[in-house]
């Protein structure tokens, strides 16, 4: 595609820049510039609510403060637990549902659509209405659980042992369909002839599953988990409305803590350093994960 002027109007090069320019400009202005700004602020003692005061350069002080703070590591632990359980449950249930939906039964398209509904909803609003379901006096969730086994009165949101599970349950309810859909796409991409060949070779159903189905769907599952992992590392809205990080800090995920430091205590410099650390963590883990994923794909 050389720039020969054989057609009328703008050259291809001009059109290309005209088309890409606005998007790149907006991303630079609203995404990259704020990020650089945040990195710059992370080296200062800036407070966004004190306008008149000139921020001073403090070097790596903020970073050292963040990394030495016991509480930060607790939040990271809470985030890690949340991610571990949500990803595990969503992988197992999502894959299971995808395998079931992949048998051609009548009406499975409609059922797929209905199952997908929760992930289309607003996480914050979902968080609010689950506080009602979890209500220890009148909640439907508590009623149903007690209907099957009488635990007596329990408070999913108010007790520090149960609260971490309350957010895992809601997230799993909401996002299992996502893993399911991606796995389903994976299952449908397996060519039929692989199974036909396996039948000819007298492979059992189980062997077909282990040697054909699982390896083909695994890259898709891993990809779904990457997306969910990134999202849950950033998790904010649903949990804020459900437990607001409590009781105490039992469900205070990294993002919620970041919001408190940045928008309640207005420690802009300190919170920017924390934000940069979180960002680098996502990027680092994401990159390593993608490398591992590609290795698995190649096999």
């Amino acid at each position, binding site marked *: 595609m050389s720039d020969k002027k054989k057609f009328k109007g703008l050259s291809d090069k001009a059109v290309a820049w005209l088309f890409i320019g606005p998007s790149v400009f907006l991303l630079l202005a609203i995404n990259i510039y704020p990020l650089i700004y945040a990195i710059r602020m992370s080296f200062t003692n800036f407070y966004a609510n004190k306008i008149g005061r000139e921020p001073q350069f403090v070097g790596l002080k903020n970073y050292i403060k963040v990394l030495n703070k016991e509480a930060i590591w607790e939040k990271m632990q809470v985030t890690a637990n949340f991610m571990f359980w949500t990803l595990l449950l969503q992988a197992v249930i999502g894959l299971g549902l995808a395998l079931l939906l992949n048998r051609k039964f009548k009406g499975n398209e409609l059922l797929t659509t209905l199952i997908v509904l929760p992930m289309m909803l607003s*996480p914050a609003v979902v968080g609010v209405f689950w506080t009602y*379901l979890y209500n220890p006096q009148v909640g439907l969730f508590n009623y149903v659980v007690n209907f099957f086994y009488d635990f007596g009165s329990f408070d999913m949101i108010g007790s520090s042992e149960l609260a971490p599970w309350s957010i895992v349950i809601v997230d799993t309810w909401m996002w299992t369909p996502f893993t399911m859909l991606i796995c389903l796409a994976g299952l449908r991409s397996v060519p039929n002839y692989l199974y036909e060949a396996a039948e000819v070779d007298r492979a059992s159903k189980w062997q077909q599953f282990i040697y054909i189905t699982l390896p083909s769907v695994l890259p898709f599952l891993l990809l779904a988990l990457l997306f969910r992992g990134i999202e849950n590392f950033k998790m904010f809205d649903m949990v804020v409305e459900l437990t607001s990080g409590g009781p105490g800090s039992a469900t205070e995920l990294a993002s919620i803590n970041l919001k408190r430091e940045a928008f309640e205590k207005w420690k802009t410099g300190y919170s920017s350093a924390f934000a940069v650390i979180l960002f680098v963590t996502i990027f680092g883990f994401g990159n390593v994960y993608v490398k591992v994923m590609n290795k698995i794909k190649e096999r």
Partner: protein
Amino acid sequence: MDTSRSYLEPSSFSKKLAATIIIVYTVITLIPISWMVMTSFKNVNSAISYPPEVLFEPSLEGYVNLFTNRSRQSQEYLDSLPAPETWYEELVRSREMVITGPSKFLGRYSNSMIIGFGSTFASVFLGALAAYAFSRFRVPLKDDLLFFILSTRMFPPIAVAVPIFIMYRKLGLGDTHLGMIILYTVVNLSLAVWLLKGFMDEIPKEYEEAAMIDGYSRLQAFFKVVLPQAMTGIAATAIFCMIFSWNEYAFAVLLTQFNAQTAPPFIPTIIGEGGLDWPAIGAGTTLFLLPVMIFTIILRKHLLRGITFGAVRK
């Protein structure tokens, strides 16, 4: 996309078993949503009865409470008022209250609409332009640019919220519709470019080349030939952008307060006497979730395709 089954025909028993498990799961997963819709039609007392009432006398109290502000009055004062003119006034009076004015819900809801449609249009339009260029032209550093566009999605919103807050304050965009439209447009842009590039790649180059030989310029060919061809992809992308903007919470709660705040930060704040007003919250939630659910069901083909698209093409 080939949607034909990759499994050999399963036995009828295994099909039935699979269908049963899926139906049970579907029912369980829909209970929370149905419960919220049911709650919106309860009155305040039946919403907090235990055991939870499955059968109840329907009431529009939740919806009335959602749309109005009310204040409690003494019986003597209520008796001194002229008879209520409308059914909802009567309902409020029966709770020994009077309506003092409309609530903020309608304003928040229309903010959600304005910001949602505005940003969806902008991100799909800009995304389509960029996607076309990436799909057709040799762009220097193409892969780097594409990765850069995607990586902007990895930022935690809170991490950039403070700088955007400060920037918007300086530019006078804080708590404005325009500011939020620009912000959501940018957040959606990376997804729009990636999704639409996939769809554009599928449209044969020959189409617009034929049009250009017939005397169209590149721009005309893009608008008159390529865009109509990409309509499915544009629809799928638009739904995703709309759902994101409609549901977004973190930026809305941090960057807006009075003028441009959308519904998600407002719904949790609906408080009745002695705690949260569950029927009103149910009503707000129902009205807020309804468009998305209808959208999802009507446009399911495009949607499901859009979700799996990224995965299928790596």
